């Protein structure tokens, strides 16, 4: 990996690019308003869809790529970024794991087109657009299966503090530090043993403010999620849905999983049976695994049986 150094005469050049994503990663940076100007003193932003009007890919030291590869255009743009930048950072959950678009792996391209265009109840046109749209690929691919990635920064979006720390890591030639703390580490709720016997849906009742959601019977993914966000959700009264992706122990060990780890902890904090918690998470697996299922580390886990879980859930509806 190439390290870069800054000097007054030679600002560090940066290209950014978005592939299939929600644009949130880029917007989070622009949202910093004048704080962004401090950063602009040390870097020079070249290709950047939200800030500049440069359409080609000038040579740059650092390349931040957000989004997953869903279309042929995404693949082309990712390859151009690799060619033009010395260091590529997979920026945000979409780039690292496939992200929200990655949930598309549980449906065929035909099913998705049919739902979005063919039989969409809220539009009057019933055909997929044919002009000026880049052809879709059959599956959603995290970028590192297509281009070499030097560094990974998950988060949906990663809090700008982490983005700037990542840039400083590179500018100062430091080695990246993968912190293993989870969303719980920055949550301020207290985990208490309770006699709660029933799993609650997110919308059931009003949760207590200072007590951990797991203790209260709500499924919160904070303990299985890497903190790259500063834990805003539990601080604002809602459960973590795991948007920054799983913890290192889940990603590296095929026998560990999101549902089993949450169940291990929650069943000890409450009187709810461990298996019941596992079933509940499988029942809504499309939400609980949506951010990471396109990544091999999660999607190809021998214990990840998404198609079976979806079939079970659908059978219950019928």
């Amino acid at each position: 990996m190439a390290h870069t150094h800054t000097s007054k005469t030679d600002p560090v050049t940066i290209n950014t690019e978005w592939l299939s994503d929600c644009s949130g990663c880029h917007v989070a940076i622009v949202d910093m308003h004048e704080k962004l100007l401090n950063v602009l003193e040390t870097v020079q932003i070249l290709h950047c869809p939200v800030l500049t009007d440069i359409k080609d890919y000038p040579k740059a030291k650092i390349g931040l790529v957000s989004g997953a590869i869903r279309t042929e255009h995404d693949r082309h743009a990712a390859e151009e970024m690799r060619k033009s930048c010395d260091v590529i950072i997979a920026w945000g959950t979409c780039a690292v794991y496939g992200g929200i678009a990655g949930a598309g792996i549980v449906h065929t391209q035909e099913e998705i087109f049919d739902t979005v265009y063919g039989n969409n109840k809220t539009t009057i046109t019933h055909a997929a657009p044919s002009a000026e749209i880049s052809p879709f690929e059959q599956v959603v691919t995290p970028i590192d299966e297509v281009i070499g990635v030097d560094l990974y920064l998950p988060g949906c979006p990663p809090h700008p503090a982490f983005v700037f720390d990542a840039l400083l890591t590179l500018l100062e030639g430091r080695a990246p530090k993968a912190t293993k703390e989870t969303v719980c580490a920055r949550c301020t709720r207290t985990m208490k043993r309770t006699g709660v016997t029933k799993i609650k849906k997110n919308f059931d009742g009003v949760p207590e403010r200072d007590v951990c959601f797991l203790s209260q019977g709500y499924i919160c993914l904070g303990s299985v999620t890497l903190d790259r966000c500063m834990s805003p959700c539990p601080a604002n009264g809602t459960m973590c849905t795991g948007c920054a992706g799983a913890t290192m122990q889940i990603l590296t060990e095929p026998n560990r999983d999101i549902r089993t780890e949450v169940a291990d902890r929650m069943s000890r904090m409450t009187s709810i049976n461990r298996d019941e918690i596992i079933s509940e998470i499988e029942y809504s697996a499309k939400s609980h695994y949506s951010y990471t299922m396109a990544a091999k580390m999660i999607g190809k886990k021998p214990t990840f049986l998404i198609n079976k879980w979806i079939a079970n859930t659908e059978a219950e509806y019928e």
Partner: protein
Amino acid sequence: MIHITIHDKACRGCQLCLDICPTNVFTFDAAAAKATVAHEEDCIGCLSCSYLCPSGAFRHEEHRIVKNFYRDCEFLSRMEKFL
């Protein structure tokens, strides 16, 4: 000797480490609702506390690292690249 630190601010007070530790290394400070390391010398380095802790609040030093039977080697090679 193994050295254990708990990131105090990250501790959610769940006491899961007290439950799981086979050698009763921890005590609980009820007033602060935090776990504390009381008998570090008894730690056998099994890392059960570290795996179960919801926050990832533990740091063990000078313990013998035992490789897990099953690991995703492909992902492990990427781990050091995480920012």
